[in-house]
């Protein structure tokens, strides 16, 4: 059962960037990649719970600001030490300029 939640306006995120979105005790990272592709993952690094929204988006990779651990944004896959545990990913859609995330 889907639970679509409005996270932000599409224009709130610059291209190749990420913002933090908190909802009901869950922290997410919402990404806007090239060609207006939007994604959402768990917002905390699986290594030491640092907010990924303070990190750097490079192509389709997010780099954690604390120890430079990297994750593939579309799949959440950890790309090597010290990031060893994958991020949870969430479905995203954009409707009428708003970014919606399925938290179900």
């Amino acid at each position, binding site marked *: 059962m889907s639970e679509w939640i409005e996270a932000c306006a599409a224009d709130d995120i610059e291209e190749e*960037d990420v913002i933090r979105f908190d909802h009901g005790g869950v922290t997410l990272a919402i990404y806007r990649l090239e060609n207006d592709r939007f994604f959402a993952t768990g917002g905390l690094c699986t*290594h*030491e719970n640092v907010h990924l929204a303070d*990190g*750097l988006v*490079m192509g389709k990779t997010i*780099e954690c*600001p*604390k*120890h*430079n651990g*990297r994750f593939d944004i579309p799949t959440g896959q950890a790309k090597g*030490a*010290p990031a*060893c545990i994958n991020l949870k990913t969430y479905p995203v859609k954009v409707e009428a300029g708003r970014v919606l995330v399925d938290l179900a």
Partner: protein
Amino acid sequence: MSSAAAPRMAAGRDYSLVGAEARRAEERGLASATWYTTPIPRKQLKELMRRKDGPAIRDTALWIGALILFGSAGVLLWGHWVAVPFFIAYGVLYGSASDSRWHECGHGTAFKTGWMNDAVYNLACFMIMREPTVWRWSHTRHHTDTIIVGRDPEISVKRPPDILGLLLNLFAIKTTWFALGKLVLHARGRLNAEEATFIPEMERHKVFRTARIYLAILAAVVIACMALHSWIPAMLIGLPTLYGGWLTIVFGVTQHAGLSEDVLDHRLNSRTVYMNPVSRFLYWNMNYHVEHHMFPMVPYHALPALHEAIKAECPPAYPSLLAAYREIIPAVLRQRRDPDYHVIRVLPATATALPADRLATAA
């Protein structure tokens, strides 16, 4: 800057990662804590964090080119005293410049391209005899818990300081001795108790495999020396870690020695030291150490710009290596008899101070 002598601590502190101080650091909320960070507008920070291949390709080509040039000259002139300066230069590039290369590439920030970071990281790790997986994880902990006693495995000048060890490390004697012992341990498929606290289970097979490769390379060098009846193979591979390692210590000690322990603010436990362009090439701007610790995702070539962006919030940078040592040497000598003594860095009057509840002091 000012200095302080806190209540007396007779025998120094327990720097082990599995001892009483390790438990105490956790109880005091110093483990994996939240650290002070100077606010920088996101747009500016993104620009500073931007990755490039160009600067590191240029610097690596220069570095490898100079290694080949000086190494070849040393070999060609072997047996004449004129070979000595070439081996000195080769040794510094091998045993000291490798320190910054493993460091920056370990963070994955030197190059934009991942495999280039990995290639230079592995080469530099071998040159300085730091096992890549072990040091990746120990350095991760160093960034989580910088100079937190009982947590940080990379506190190089402890209290009281081991002056003899520091002097031996001018030629990497103590570090290499321990590194060789650990290689043997790891090659046998084991870690020591401290390493087990920061290297996850899933990464350990890499430690064991690399230790065996390192030992095989070192054994091949010894065999080559015996077969050729010559020291030349060892002068090119292995020994430069020792005879060329002195600048690692000269530069490295400036990072944290003599400053506060157990504070959650890199402005108080790290130094930024201005250096000349040659030193900054050799050290890949690691002299901007406050900046590096506060924003580890900023590549080395952007650290001078980061320094400009945050310096109003930081204690003044040291104008030279000499100025840094004018503070470090007396502080470290005094810590031999007074382990509580440390230099307290004073923030500019306009800077945002760390809230008192996060300014734990070594009591």
